[in-house]
C-alpha cells in the first residue's frame, strides 16, 4: 500500500482534525454555563442564549486562529524547499518536459534551417 517511497515525511504531523468540533462544543458549554450563572445572579434568563452565542463565537475565533497559524507556515516550507517551482507535486513531469524541450537539438535554430 505504501510501496512508492514518500519524498518527505513530516517531522511533526498536522493538527487534530476534530479540534474545530472540540472548540465549538467547549465554547458553547463553558460560556453557556457562565450565562446560566449570570441568569441566576441577575434574575434574567436572556443571559443563557447570550452566553451560548458568545461561546460559539469564541470557539469559532479559536478555530480561525489555529488555521491562520498553520497556513503561512506551510506556504513558507514549500517555498523554501523548492524556490523556483510553484507546483512541487508535479516537479518530475514538469522537469522532464523542460529537459525534453531543451534537449531537442533543432528547436532553437529551426527558423534558420527552414
Amino acid at each position, binding site marked *: *500500500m*505504501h510501496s512508492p517511497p514518500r519524498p518527505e*515525511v*513530516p*517531522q*511533526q*504531523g*498536522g*493538527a*487534530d*482534525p*476534530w*479540534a474545530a*468540533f*472540540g*472548540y465549538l*462544543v*467547549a*465554547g458553547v*458549554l*463553558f460560556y453557556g454555563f457562565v450565562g446560566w450563572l449570570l441568569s441566576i445572579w441577575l434574575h434574567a434568563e436572556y443571559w443563557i442564549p447570550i452566553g451560548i452565542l458568545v*461561546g460559539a463565537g*469564541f*470557539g469559532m*475565533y*479559536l478555530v480561525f*486562529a*489555529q488555521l*491562520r*497559524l498553520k497556513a503561512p507556515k506551510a506556504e513558507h516550507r514549500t517555498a523554501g524547499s523548492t524556490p523556483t517551482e510553484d507546483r512541487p507535486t508535479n516537479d518530475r513531469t514538469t522537469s522532464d518536459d523542460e529537459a525534453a524541450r531543451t534537449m531537442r537539438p533543432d528547436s532553437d535554430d529551426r527558423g534558420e534551417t527552414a
Partner: protein
Amino acid sequence: MSHTGQVQAQVQAAEGFHAPGPVDFFLPDFTGSSWDEHGYQVLLTKASLLLILGAVVAYLFLAITSRRSAVVPSKSQFLGEQAYNFVRNGIAQDIIGSKDYRRYVPLLVSLFFFVVVNNLFGIVPLLTFSPFSRVSFAYGLALLVWLVYNGVGVMQKGFGGYLKHATIPSGVPGWILPLLIPLEFLSNILIRPVTLSLRLFANMFAGHLLLILFSTGGAYLLIHATGSPVLKPAGVLAFALGVAIGFLEIVVALLQAYVFTLLTAQYISGALASEH
C-alpha cells in the same frame, strides 16, 4: 430480564411487533444478577467475554502471521505485515512524525487490531455483538488513550509545562487569552476523550440496531404479518437490506478502528509538539 420481558410483553400485546431499542443492548448476566429495582447490575456478560476473546484473537492474528518470518513472505505473513505497516507508516509515522514515532507503534498497532476485532464481532455469526456498542467499554478505551497522551505530554514537558501547553492557545493576542484559556482546556482535556469514545460507541450501536431492526422486522413481516399481499415481499426486501447493512458494517468496523487509532496518534502528536 424480568423487566425486559415485561416490556416486551406489553409491547407485543399492544402492537404485535417488538421494535428494537437500547433495551436490546442490556445483555443478561452469566452470574445471575440482572435487571431489578436497583437498575442494571452485572459482573460478566457476553460483551465482557467478547472483549477478552477480542484481545486473544488480535494477539493470535499477529502472532501467527509473524511466527515464521521469511524473506519471501507466505500469504499470512504478507497479510499481517501489510496491516502492521499500514498502522506503522500510514498512521504512526505520518501523524507523530519520523523523529519519535517508534515508541508509540506498539500501542497504536495493538489498539487498531483490538478495536478492529471487537468491531467485527458485531457481524460474525453466533457472536453478533460488538462490545463497543456498550458505551462503558468505549469509555474505558478512551480513558486509556487519555492517560497515555496526557502522560506523554507531562513526561515531555513536566506538569506545569504541559498544562501551559494544553491550556494556552497560540496565535491569539494577549488581551483575549483569559477568555480562551477555559475553552482550550475543555477542548484538549475533557472533550477529546468524550468524542473519541462516543464516536466509536455510536457507530457500533447504530449498526447493531439497524441489523436487529432489519432481521427481526423482516422475520415478523414474513411469518406473522397478515392483511396485505405486499407484506411478505417487504419482508424479503428487509432481509436483503439487512444483508447490505451487514456489508456496510464491515466497512464501518474497519473505518472506526482506523479513526480511533488515527486520533490517538493525533493526540500523542499534539502532546509532543514543541510549539502549538
